[in-house]
């Protein structure tokens, strides 16, 4: 059960933020040569799709796109009885010498990104790996920092950041909600 909802970004806010991140990725990497946008399942995947669409609109060329499922790389797998459902990973290009930009919805402890880094290097040796997140909510447990941040949100222990993405949840919004249990 969750109660008390503060809206951090509404649908327009999500759209503007994703657009800005797409521009920043282009600016920092000076175009799309050797650029690969890789979304982390579940909600990073549609975000990556949107960023690629925006970049294509600007550059008239589509960067490489991939999807990463990090389930098999989680560090808490053996501690749980029920197994997270494994979904497919789709990296339809050689990652060697590419600049890979990982896309995720929320950056929190950093453990998901740690898993994603392991997963990506299992496909080869990228030139560099960057990280873009829609929301950074702090409370890192690992030395990981994002290169592109949509919104920084400071949260207390009893609060959760909930990102809803149209393709997965039917609506675009970012909210802070209080945990009651």
């Amino acid at each position, binding site marked *: 059960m969750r109660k008390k909802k503060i809206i951090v970004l509404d649908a327009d806010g999500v759209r503007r933020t994703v657009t800005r991140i797409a521009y920043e990725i282009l600016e920092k990497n000076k175009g799309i040569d050797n650029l690969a946008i890789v979304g982390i399942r579940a909600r990073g995947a549609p975000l990556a799709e949107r960023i690629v669409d925006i970049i294509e609109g600007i550059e008239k060329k589509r960067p490489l796109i991939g999807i990463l*499922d990090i389930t*098999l*790389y989680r560090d808490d*797998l*053996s*501690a*749980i*009885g*029920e*197994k*997270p*459902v*494994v*979904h*497919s*990973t*789709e990296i339809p290009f050689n990652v060697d010498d590419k600049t890979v930009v990982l896309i995720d919805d929320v950056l929190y402890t950093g453990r998901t990104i740690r898993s994603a880094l*392991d*997963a990506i290097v*299992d*496909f*080869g040796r990228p030139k560099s790996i960057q990280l873009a997140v829609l929301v950074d909510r702090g409370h890192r447990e690992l030395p990981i920092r994002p290169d592109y941040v949509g919104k920084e949100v400071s949260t207390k222990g009893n609060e959760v950041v909930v990102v809803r993405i149209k393709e997965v949840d039917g609506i675009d919004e970012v909210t802070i909600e209080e945990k009651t249990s």
Partner: protein
Amino acid sequence: MRKKLHRKDLLGLEDISAEEIELILNTAVSLKEISERPIKKVPTLRGKTIVNLFLEPSTRTSSSFDLAAKRLSADTVTVSSSSSSILKGETLLDTARNLEAMRIDAAVVRHSSAGAAHFLAQRLKASVINAGDGSHEHPTQGLLDMLTIREKLKRLENINVLIVGDIAHSRVARSNIFGLKKMGANVSICAPPTFIPYYIERLGVKIFYNLNEALPHADVINVLRIQLERQGKELFPSIREYKELYRITKDRLQLAKSDVLIMHPGPINRGVELDPDVADGISSVILEQVTNGLAIRMAILYLLITHK
């Protein structure tokens, strides 16, 4: 989303639910991609130990289980009958208990006696996976056959599967029948009467004795190996007669649908139950079965082995 198999062991498809089969097949689809990577390995089962206890000859199944474990980063030991203390008279239970004393997480068991895997599963804390027990079940073969059919035909429901050959001695046939019926497929069998077990009608399959009558309905033909090592010669008059009546040949295949799938669990007796030009022809998905077998075994190991 989290899901699990409601069991410690995989012993057969007779007592497993359609929902669990669905979970295994879907997990296998996701894991298949790992074997296509330049580095064919993920760290998921790092630090887990799996013993492959193969007390009956096997190439495909034993290497498939071994590779499945290794692609998930588990450590494996393979014990085969010819090199084990079973030859010195050690009982199966003693062998397994000794292996468990080495803190294994799972045992994959192939044995010539029906029930061998059940026997061990009741006595070991480790997960037990049945890799074939006598004429009883071979669940991972049933699963990989279903995955192959689903991959090619996009569904299992209402698909007509014809199994040809020695049904009575075939654990592959039994696991296929149990699994396919649960997933809503229609199963027919075709064999000489001596190859058809007395209980078969209870399983809800249609029986044909004449191959030419059976072929036109099939979407899939699963051709079983004539197991010359498993039965006495008295079950059919001669191999020559069996070949004349039941061998799948290019000519006979004219009676079947043009897009029928030909499957075989291997090893093939070329020219006995299946002609080489059919085994290697465009309808054959026999090598895809092998590729899918690895993915199914990876899925089973992922879903069964947990923190203990």
